C-alpha cells in the first residue's frame, strides 16, 4: 500500500490523500468477489488490482491532471474531497457494519518454537513481496517503466524527447492504485472492512513512506518493515496502547535527522 503512495508521489508529485479510502474500495471489491464467486482474497488480488488500475488511470486522467500545475493546497483539497466521496459512497452501498471473509486459513497459524505466526499474514507478506518484485522489475527492465522514471527524473526533459507525459502520469497513478488494490485484497484476508477504515491507513502509509523516503520504492518497503517492528516491540516491551507512539517517535527522529527519509533523495 505504501509502495503505491510512494510510486504516485515519486512520479506524479501528487500526494494521494484518498489512498486509504481507495484501499477500502479494494477491500469491498474483494469482499464482493468472495461473496459472489467464493474467490479467495489472494486469488482476487489480480482482478481487484486490475480494477483499481482502471480506477486510478481514469481518476488521474479526468480529475487530477487538470490540477497538476495548480498550487499544492488545491491538489490536497481535491484528493480529500475524493476521499470523502469514497467513504460516504461505501457507507451508502455497504453500510457501517464491519464485514469480513472467512477462508480455510483464516484462523490458521504456524508454530515456530515459542513463536506463533498468523498464517494469513505470512501468505499476505509473501504476496506483497511478489508484487513489490514485479513492480521493481517493471520500472527497471521495461521501456514503459523507463519512460515513467524519465518523467519522474525530469519533467521538462520528458516533454522535450516527446513522451506523452499526461498518459504516463495516468499510467503511474493506475499502477499506484493497482498496488493499493493488491494491498486491499491481501488485507481482506487479515482484517474486516468498514467504510471508516481508510483514514487510519492513509495516515499509516504516510508515516511509512515519509520514514522510508517519499518517492523511493525501496524506502517504502524499508519504512514498512521499520514501522511494523517498532510498533510490535513498543507494544510488547512497553504499553500496547502506546505502540503507535513509538512509530510516530521514529518518524519524528527521521524528520529531525534525515528529513528526506532514510532512502529518500534530497531535492536541490
Amino acid at each position, binding site marked *: 500500500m505504501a509502495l503505491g503512495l510512494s510510486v504516485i508521489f515519486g512520479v506524479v508529485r501528487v500526494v494521494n490523500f484518498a489512498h486509504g479510502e481507495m484501499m477500502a474500495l479494494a477491500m469491498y471489491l474483494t469482499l464482493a468477489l468472495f461473496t459472489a464467486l467464493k474467490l479467495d482474497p489472494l486469488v482476487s488480488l489480480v482482478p481487484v488490482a486490475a480494477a483499481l488500475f482502471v480506477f486510478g488511470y481514469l481518476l488521474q486522467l479526468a480529475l487530477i491532471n487538470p490540477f497538476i500545475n495548480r498550487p499544492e493546497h488545491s491538489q490536497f483539497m481535491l484528493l480529500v474531497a475524493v476521499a470523502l466521496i469514497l467513504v460516504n459512497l461505501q*457507507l451508502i452501498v455497504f*453500510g*457501517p*457494519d*464491519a464485514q*469480513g471473509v*472467512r477462508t480455510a486459513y*483464516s*484462523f*490458521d*497459524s504456524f*508454530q515456530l518454537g515459542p513463536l*506463533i505466526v*498468523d*498464517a494469513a499474514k505470512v501468505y499476505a507478506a509473501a504476496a506483497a513481496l511478489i508484487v513489490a518484485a514485479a513492480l521493481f522489475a517493471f520500472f527497471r527492465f521495461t521501456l514503459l517503466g523507463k519512460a515513467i522514471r524519465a518523467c519522474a527524473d525530469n519533467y521538462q526533459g520528458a516533454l522535450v524527447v516527446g513522451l506523452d507525459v499526461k498518459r504516463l502520469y495516468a499510467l503511474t497513478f493506475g499502477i499506484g492504485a493497482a498496488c493499493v488494490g493488491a494491498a486491499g485484497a491481501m488485507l481482506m484476508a*487479515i*482484517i*474486516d472492512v*468498514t*467504510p*471508516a*477504515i481508510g483514514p*487510519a*491507513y492513509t495516515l499509516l502509509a504516510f508515516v511509512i513512506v515519509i520514514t522510508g523516503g517519499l518517492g523511493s520504492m525501496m524506502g517504502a518497503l524499508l519504512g514498512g518493515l521499520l514501522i511494523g517492528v517498532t*510498533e*510490535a516491540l513498543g*507494544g*510488547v516491551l512497553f*504499553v*500496547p*496502547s502506546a*505502540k*503507535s507512539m513509538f512509530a510516530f517517535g521514529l518518524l519524528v527522529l527521521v524528520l529531525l535527522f534525515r528529513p528526506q527519509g532514510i532512502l529518500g533523495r534530497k531535492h536541490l
Partner: protein
Amino acid sequence: MDRRTFSRNMALVGAATALSPFGIVRAQAQKLKVGVLLPRSGVQAGIGQDCHRGVEVAAGILRELGYPALEIMSGDTESNVDVARARAERLISDGAQLLVGAFDSGQTTAIAQVAEQRGVPLIINVAAAPPITEQGYKFVFRNFPTAPVILRDAFANQLEIFSMTGQAPKTCVFMHVNDTFGVAMQKGFTGVMSKFTMPYKVVDTIAYDPAARDLSVEVAKAKASGAEALIMVSRLNDAILITRELVKQRWDPLAVLSMGPGWYEDQYLKTLGKLGDGPLSFVPWYDPNKKLTKQLEAAHHKAYPDINLNTNHVYTFEALLVAADAFKRAGSTDPKALADAIRATSIKDNVSPGPGIQFDAKGQNDKLKNSAIQNRGGKLVTVAPKDAANAKPEVPMRPYSKR
C-alpha cells in the same frame, strides 16, 4: 347558505376551536421534537446503527401505550466527541426540544454540556462514565447504570456463576479499551473488586485503542501472563479482533468475562459463528419476564427478524419512553417543564431489570440492575441473576480448537 357564508362560518368555527380553553389537548396534538444523537458512522457506526433500531421500533409501541407522538430528528456524531457537540448545537438550533443519546460516554459528556448550557433536557440512552451525572446538571438524565454499578453487579453475578458451575479461574488478565468508558471501568475495577471475595487475582492489565487495526501484540502479552481467564471491557470491532487472535494464538481461556459491549452483539455472533459461543457478558440487559419486554421483543422481531434484542435497543427505546411519558405529563414542549416532568418520572411498566424508571436528585436511575448473559449457539441466554435467568451457565468455555 351560499358559499361565502359557509366559508365565513367555517372560519369562525376554526378560530373558536383554536382559542378554546383546551390548551393541554392542543399541546398534545403537536409533536415533541426529539433530537436523537448516535454514532451512526465512524468506528462505532455498527453500535450506533444498532441503537437506532430501538428508535425505529419505539414509535409503534409508544402509540399502542397511548403516548403522544414524537418527531425524531436524527444526528450522526460520527463517533467523534467534537462532532457530537456540534451536532447537539445544530439539532437544538433546528428546533429539537429534547435530546436523546449518545451511546459513548465521551460523546455524551460533550452533548450533556451543550444540553445544560442551552437548557434542553438530555435523556442518556447508553453511557456509563459516572461524572456525567455528578456535575450538578439540571437538564441531564440517565436511565443506564454507571460503571461502578455495572462492575458491582458483574462481580456479584460472577460469584453466582462460579458457585453454580463449581469452576472458577485463579488468575485473570484485564484488557480494556482506553476510551472514556474503558478508563472509567478500569478506574472503578480494583475498588469495586476489593468489596467482593473473588476467587482470582488480576495478574496484568492491558489497555488498548478501540480503533486498533491489529490486537495481536495485546493478546500475545495477555497470553504470556499465564492467566486462566480474560476479563474484558471492549467495543465491537476489537471484541471480534481479540477472539480471532485467541484462536490464532491457540489460547483457550477458562472463561471470557466481558463487562461491556461487543461480545454479545449480533455482529459479533454473525461474524464469528461457532467461535462466538462461550463468552459471558455482565451487562445492563432486559428482564425477559416483564410485559413490556414481550411487547418490545415482538415489535423488534417483526422489524428485524434476524437480530436479537439487546442492550442498545432496550435502553434507546426506554430513553424515548421516558421522553414520551414526560411530554404527556408536562403537556408542553417547554424545556423546563419537560425537565421537571422527567425528574418526576415513575414508570413501573418498563423493560430493563429492576423496579422501573425513576431518577434521583442527580438525574440518575439508581435502581437499575444488571444481568449475566452467555452466547450459546448464536443466541443469547440469561444465566444470572438466578431469578431472571433462563439457562444455566457453561464454564469452562469449550476450547476453540475443539469446535
